[in-house]
């Protein structure tokens, strides 16, 4: 009845190879700029790679999070297209390896000028939290926690897909694997709370500006990665529907994902604004310096573009109900959101590393991001071919097919 066997369409393969080729061109451009270049050229290259690899890792991890959240809440609506976030989650390990190798080489080779706390002349006594922060921003802790978290994310991502596939061959009505998945999800919720929702953005991104700190920074990063992760899932759903798969995923399911995109765009704005307003109101020089370069300095354009792409566009376009059910409109907004949050990460990472020299990282980054997108398309589409597109024998299967949003 339904087409459950996914075959990678030729157009997807072709597009992804073109994108990967663009990424390779970006890499060659970056490496050639770095060869014989000064420290600035080197920093520009490494900061760009870091920006893109962290961005793709975090939006992939968002897929594990949505699986966890819906499993724990026993939500049925996601079961219809559960295989898509599962396929993304099962490929988190690829991006984890890229990010792990990159960050550890930054920390241990110590000549990339990304993290100022690695500088031997850096004086930790300058900052008011020097005891604790010295431990947090040490080579040992950074290595230990980065490796541990990347390992846990990769394993949980693979495990969730394994459990889901195991359920396919179980007898109808069996809930053993379902409860196993529930327990694994509870474990991941804890891991997630201690990693992406708190320490990891502090460690990887906020420590670029090592004197500046904001408790809200991690939540703000979580919102950013989650809303772009949901947008990515939306694009996969619409692509598969267009190719004639996922016939049981209706407007109702698309509407629900659209609600997530809408709601979490507002949630992101809430955190973005709260972080800004407290610092603006307190007006303490060591805190406002972070926004000086972004709001009034060379990043002014990106600062306001960020706000328009990630708040004004989604809230105005997605507010009416029919728009959340219109496949063209939601895919357009999904692309706007993903690009907007790419810009968001850009303006988080670049000012602290390359200061006002953002032109080269932007061009290089736009090419390299194509490469990463192509890689992701290859990986996810190959994983999708390996199992039926609907979880068989899932206890919520009927409920998800008759779902009305």
């Amino acid at each position, binding site marked *: 009845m339904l087409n459950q066997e996914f075959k990678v369409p030729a157009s997807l393969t072709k597009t992804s190879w073109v994108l990967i080729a663009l990424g390779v061109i970006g890499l060659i451009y970056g490496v050639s700029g770095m060869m014989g270049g000064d420290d600035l050229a080197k920093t520009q290259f490494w900061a760009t790679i870091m920006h893109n690899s962290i961005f793709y890792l975090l939006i992939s991890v968002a897929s594990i999070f949505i699986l966890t959240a819906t499993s724990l809440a026993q939500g049925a609506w996601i079961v219809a297209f559960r295989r898509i976030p599962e396929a993304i989650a099962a490929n988190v390990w690829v991006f984890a390896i890229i990010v792990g190798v990159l960050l550890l080489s930054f920390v241990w080779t110590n000549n990339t000028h990304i993290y100022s706390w690695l500088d031997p002349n850096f004086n930790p006594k300058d900052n008011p939290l020097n005891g604790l922060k010295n431990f947090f921003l040490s080579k040992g802790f950074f290595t230990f926690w980065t490796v541990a978290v990347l390992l846990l994310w990769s394993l949980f991502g693979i495990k969730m897909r394994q459990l889901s596939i195991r359920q396919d061959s179980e007898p109808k009505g069996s809930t053993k694997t379902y409860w196993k998945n529930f327990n694994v999800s509870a474990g991941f919720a804890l891991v997630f709370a201690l990693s992406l929702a708190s320490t990891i953005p502090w460690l990887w991104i906020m420590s670029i500006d090592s004197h500046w700190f904001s408790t809200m920074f991690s939540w703000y990063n979580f919102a950013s990665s989650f809303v772009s992760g949901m947008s990515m899932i939306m694009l996969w759903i619409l692509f598969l529907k267009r190719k004639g798969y996922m016939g049981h995923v209706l407007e109702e399911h698309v509407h629900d994902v659209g609600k997530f995109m809408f709601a979490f765009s507002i949630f992101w704005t809430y955190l973005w604004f709260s972080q800004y307003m407290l610092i603006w109101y307190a*007006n303490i020089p060591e805190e406002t310096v972070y926004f000086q370069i972004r709001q009034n300095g060379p990043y002014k354009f990106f600062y306001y573009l960020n706000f328009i792409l990630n708040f004004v566009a989604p809230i105005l376009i997605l507010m*009416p*109900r029919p728009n959340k059910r219109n496949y063209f409109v939601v895919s357009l907004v999904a692309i706007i959101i993903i690009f907007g949050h790419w810009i968001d990460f850009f303006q988080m990472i670049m000012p602290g590393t390359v200061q006002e020299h953002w032109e080269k990282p932007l061009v290089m980054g736009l090419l390299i991001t194509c490469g990463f997108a192509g890689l992701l398309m290859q990986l996810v589409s190959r994983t999708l071919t390996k199992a039926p597109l609907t979880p068989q024998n899932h206890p919520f299967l009927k409920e998800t097919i008759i779902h*009305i949003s």
Partner: protein
Amino acid sequence: MSVKKFAVATYNDEAVLFPAVKKVRGAGYKIHDVYTPFAVHGLDVALGEKESDLHIAGFIYGITGTCTALGFMGWIFTTDWPQNFGGKPHFPLPAFIPIVFELTVLFAAVGMVLTFCYLNQIMPGVKKHIFNPRQTDDKFVMAIEVDDTTEADTIAFLKGTGAEETNVQIAESEWWYGRWDKKEDYEIQQQIA
């Protein structure tokens, strides 16, 4: 005030109600209303109701709240009584945002509640005829307006759609303000009969 005659069918389950609604509409009967103990998803679509405009009203109320908050605070702090708070500008937009947000929500919420009450013709003290007391408990009730010529035919059709109970009621179709008065109801029925 207008008293009308209704054919009333009571169903046991929403799984019976849905096909019944489809059959009744397919046969060309005009459903007065359906009463359910809980919100049945998709019933509005099955009944062919057009989408509510309540959210458009909500958007307008929200924008009104935004403008009220910004305009009022802006007028106070720039024109009416300018003060210097810690060297901040006289129109400190970031500091106003939380209040602007709260007023937007307040206007939208209160306005939408009142509009909802108006659209559904409900208010404290307003009474409406209840076709079956168990429609708020566990029964699903469908009412169809009939006259003397269509009455028997409609009841027969409703029986065929799986209704567990059918009857004809003469009732006030609009709301009224006052008391539940069974005697008055009885008198109306007597007058019509």
